[in-house]
């Protein structure tokens, strides 16, 4: 299963960063290809909570569901998606020397068949995934620091 990961330093406390990320309504703000999060069934910090999403993967519109796997305040938030994309997202935070956060965001995913059949060049898919990951890291930093 392909995996993508980014580490970014953010000038905010780990508690603040993980608290923000664990509110999945915020995800369209920093995941550029995520169009919407809706039908949230409850508090996304609780493991039984589920929601729906729409995502444009390399130009292909996908939709599916997701559910929280794990939430540890100030340390970790993870969730799993099903439907259009099978994937697992994990966000892990550690304090740095200056009181800020070293955030590592990683995702394991299966490239959907609909994407494979629509996108001719595999390199386009790789570029798309790497681009979304780069943007997400930089956008999260911008959201907290600017």
């Amino acid at each position, binding site marked *: 299963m392909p995996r993508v990961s980014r580490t970014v330093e953010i000038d905010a406390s780990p508690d603040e960063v993980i608290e*923000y990320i664990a509110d999945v*309504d*915020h995800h*369209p*703000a*920093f995941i*550029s290809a995520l*169009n*919407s999060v809706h039908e949230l069934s409850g508090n996304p910090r609780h493991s039984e909570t589920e929601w729906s999403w729409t995502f444009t993967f390399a130009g292909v519109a996908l939709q599916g569901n997701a559910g929280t796997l794990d939430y540890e305040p100030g340390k970790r938030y993870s969730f799993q998606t099903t439907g259009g994309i099978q994937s697992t997202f994990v966000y892990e935070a550690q304090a740095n020397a200056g009181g800020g956060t070293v955030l590592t965001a990683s995702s394991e995913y299966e490239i959907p068949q609909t994407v494979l059949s629509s996108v001719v060049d595999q390199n386009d898919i790789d570029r798309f995934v790497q681009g979304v990951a780069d943007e997400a890291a*930089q*956008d999260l930093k*911008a*959201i*907290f*620091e*600017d």
Partner: protein
Amino acid sequence: MFAVPDWNRSRLPLRPLLYALPPVAALLSYRRPGIKAIRVSTVLQYIAAVEALYALHGYRPARGRRVVRSTLAIALSLAIPTTRLLLRYDSSDFEAMTRRCLGATRTPFRRSGSNFVATIAGTERRIRVRSLMRGVAVLDFTGSWQQRKAQVVQRLILKSLEPLVPRIVIRLGGAHAKSEPDG
């Protein structure tokens, strides 16, 4: 507020009720070919379309307005396959959306007349979202929107607005919005 049945999972026949209502019948040309019944996601949103229909047709029911409103709302909820066909959104819908976007990007803001004044990297930038007839939303962004955080805000607003209206007009630099009186 009247009670509206939850028809989210229902599939009901369209024609008998629709053809009995002249303003609604006018909308039938918007229907997608072949659609016999439509799944309803939210009835309340369609009330805005009902109000727009009233305006378009000059239809002002003097009596029994509430009954007519609810009947039309339900009929429209069956008739229109997507909220994209809404003719006009109330500005409060756009305001609520803008407010949510600014909150989700941790952007401090205040209201100034019909503008939102967002503070990004110490600089104030104005945003105004307004609706026009026939499903056009106009977005005025004043000030510089080149900085990354500003682009994150702008992109989220566009992303949130896109499902609501068929056409979005974006005006950068926004002399029009600048000329809006404060207060």
